[in-house]
C-alpha cells in the first residue's frame, strides 16, 4: 500500500486484524517494516526514529497504565521520558490532565479509575510533550455512548483548535465520520481507499423524503408522475436525474416541485426533503464485499 496522510484529522478504518495497529506501530518506529519505507514529517521511520519521537504522541489501544501510580505522577513521568525537565513535566501534566477533564481525581491511584478516566489519562500522556502529531489507536474502545461522545469531542477539539494533526484508528465508522477530514480504508494489509471524507460522503443522486400519513398512496402517486421511487419503511427515496448540464439541473428542481405538489395532492404531511448523503458505512460494505 502507498498512502500519504495530510494534516488534519485522519481516520484509519479497517476491520479487526486489517493491519491498523501494525501500520501505526511502523509509523512510530516500534516495529520494523518487513519491506518498503515510511516517512513521518520527512523523517524516515527507520533512521530518524528519535526525531519522530518528539513529534508524535501515541495512545495505544491496550491498557498501558501502572495501577499503583497516580495519574499526575504517571503523566509527568511520561513527560520526563520525553526529556522535559522535572518542574516543567509536573506543570505540563497538570495542564494536560485538566485539558482532558481530570481534576481532583488525578491524585488518586489509577487502579480505581473507570475505563473513561483511564482513556483520558492515556490521551493526556500522549499530549503531555506537546507533539505535532497524535496517533490514537482505538481511543473509544470500551467506552459507553456518553464517554464515546466526550472522547470524540475532545479529539476533535485537540485536532481543530490546537493545530495538532491526528491519526485515529477505529473499526467503528460512525464515529470517524463525525470527526475526520480524511479517511484511509485498509483491509488485510492492503489500501482500499484514501480520500477526503467530503468526497466519500458527498451528495448522492437520491432525494430522501420523509412524510407523515399514507405513505403507500404517496409512493403510488409519485410513481404515477413518472419518478423512480423506493420505499424504505417511513422514508421514500426518489431517484434524481444525473448530469451537470442546465437541462438536468432544471429537471432536478422540477422533481423537487413534483415531490411537494404530490404531497399536497395526497394530503400527507411533508416532514423532510433532503439530498441523501453517502455514508461511510455504505462505502465500506461496498469495498469489502
Amino acid at each position, binding site marked *: 500500500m502507498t498512502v500519504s496522510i495530510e494534516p488534519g484529522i485522519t481516520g484509519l478504518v479497517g476491520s479487526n486484524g486489517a493491519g491498523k495497529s501494525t501500520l501505526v506501530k511502523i509509523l512510530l518506529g516500534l516495529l520494523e517494516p518487513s519491506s518498503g519505507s515510511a516517512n513521518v514529517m520527512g523523517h524516515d521511520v527507520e533512521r530518524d*526514529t528519535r526525531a519522530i519521537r518528539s513529534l508524535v504522541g501515541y495512545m495505544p489501544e*491496550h491498557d498501558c497504565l501502572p495501577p499503583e501510580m497516580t495519574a499526575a505522577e504517571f503523566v509527568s513521568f*511520561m513527560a520526563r521520558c520525553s526529556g522535559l525537565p522535572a518542574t516543567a513535566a509536573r506543570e505540563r501534566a497538570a495542564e494536560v490532565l485538566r485539558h482532558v477533564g481530570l481534576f481532583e481525581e488525578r491524585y488518586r491511584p489509577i487502579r480505581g479509575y473507570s475505563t473513561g478516566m483511564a482513556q483520558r489519562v492515556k490521551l493526556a500522556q500522549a499530549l503531555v510533550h506537546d507533539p505535532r502529531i497524535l496517533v490514537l489507536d482505538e481511543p473509544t474502545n470500551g467506552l459507553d455512548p456518553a464517554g464515546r461522545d466526550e472522547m470524540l469531542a475532545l479529539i476533535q477539539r485537540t485536532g481543530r483548535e490546537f493545530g495538532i494533526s491526528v491519526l485515529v484508528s477505529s473499526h467503528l465508522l460512525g464515529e470517524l465520520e463525525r470527526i475526520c477530514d480524511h479517511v484511509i480504508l485498509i483491509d488485510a494489509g492492503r489500501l482500499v481507499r484514501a480520500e477526503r471524507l467530503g468526497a466519500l460522503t458527498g451528495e448522492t443522486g437520491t432525494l430522501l423524503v420523509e412524510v407523515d400519513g399514507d405513505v403507500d398512496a404517496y409512493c403510488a402517486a409519485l410513481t404515477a408522475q413518472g419518478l423512480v421511487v423506493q420505499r424504505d419503511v417511513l422514508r421514500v427515496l426518489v431517484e434524481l436525474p444525473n448530469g451537470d448540464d442546465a437541462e438536468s439541473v432544471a429537471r432536478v428542481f422540477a422533481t423537487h416541485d413534483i415531490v411537494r405538489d404530490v404531497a399536497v395532492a395526497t394530503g400527507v404531511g411533508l416532514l423532510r426533503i433532503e439530498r441523501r448523503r453517502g455514508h461511510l458505512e455504505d462505502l465500506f460494505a461496498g469495498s469489502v464485499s
Partner: protein
Amino acid sequence: MNGQINETTIHDLGYQRYEGARDGVRGAWRALFAQGFRAMFGLGRPLKSKAVPAFVLSATMLPCLAVLAASSASGGQLPIAYGGLIQAQLILFVLFAAAQAPEVMSHDQQHRVLPLILTRDVTRDVYASARIAAVLCALLVVCAAPLLLLYVGEIGIAVDPATAFRKMGAKAGPVLMQATLSAWVIGAIGAAMASMTPRRAYATASVIGVFLVAAAVSIGLDDLAGVSAEVSEFIDPLRSLHKMALILFGEKNRAMELTPPPPLWMFAVLALSLGTAGVLATFWRLRRVGV
C-alpha cells in the same frame, strides 16, 4: 454575581503549547533511573512494597549493631568478623533483589507501559541501562550499608578512635570491594532474571530459583560427584562471594585452614564476569521483548 469576576474560578485556558527546554535522552534516562531506584525501596508505592526493603535493611544491620555492642562491652577484645556476618546477609540481599527487581524490570512489561516508554526519547538500550543502573545502585546501598555500619562502628567503639581510624584505613578497600562485587553479582543476575517475564510472581521465583539451583548444583557436585570444594564453590555465586569476603578480611574458616583458598583475583574475576553476563542478558532480553 452582578458582573463581578468570580476570582475563585479556575479558567480553562485550553490546550497550551510547550516551548520550554527539553533535556532529551539524558533527561529521560535520569527519569527512568530515579523512578526505578525509588521503586526498589518501595518509595512512591503502597506501604506493602516497603516491607521487604525495610525487613532486609533491618535484618542485615541489627546483627551488626549487636556484634558492635558485644565488642564494645568486651572492650574491643571480641574481634568483629566481617566475613562471618556476610554469609547470612548474602541470602537476604538475594531476597531483596528477588522481591524488588521485578518492580523495576518486569513491572513495565506486566502493565504494558514499555511500548509507551519506547515511543518517547528512549531506545531499548537507554531503557535497559537506566533500569539496570537503578537495580545495581539500590543493591549497592543495601550491600554496603551493613559493612559500612560495621566499619564506622569499629572506629567509633575503639578506645582511641584516631588511632583506630589510621589502623582501619586498610579495611576501607575490602569493605567497598565486597559491597560493590556483591551488588554487581546479585543485582545483575536479579535484573536479568526479572526482565525475562512480565509476570511478577514468576520473576521473583526465578531470581530466588537461579541462586537456589546454583547452590544445589554446587553442593551436589561436592557431595555426589566428589568434585573438590575449591572447584564446586565457584558454581555457587553466594558461596564464592562469602569465600571472597573471608579472604578479603583475612578471616579463616576450618576448611581454609586445611587447604589454602584459591587466590583472591579468581573470585574477583568470577564475580565481575557473572555480573557482566547478567547485564548483557538483560540488554539482550530488552532488545527482543515484544511490544
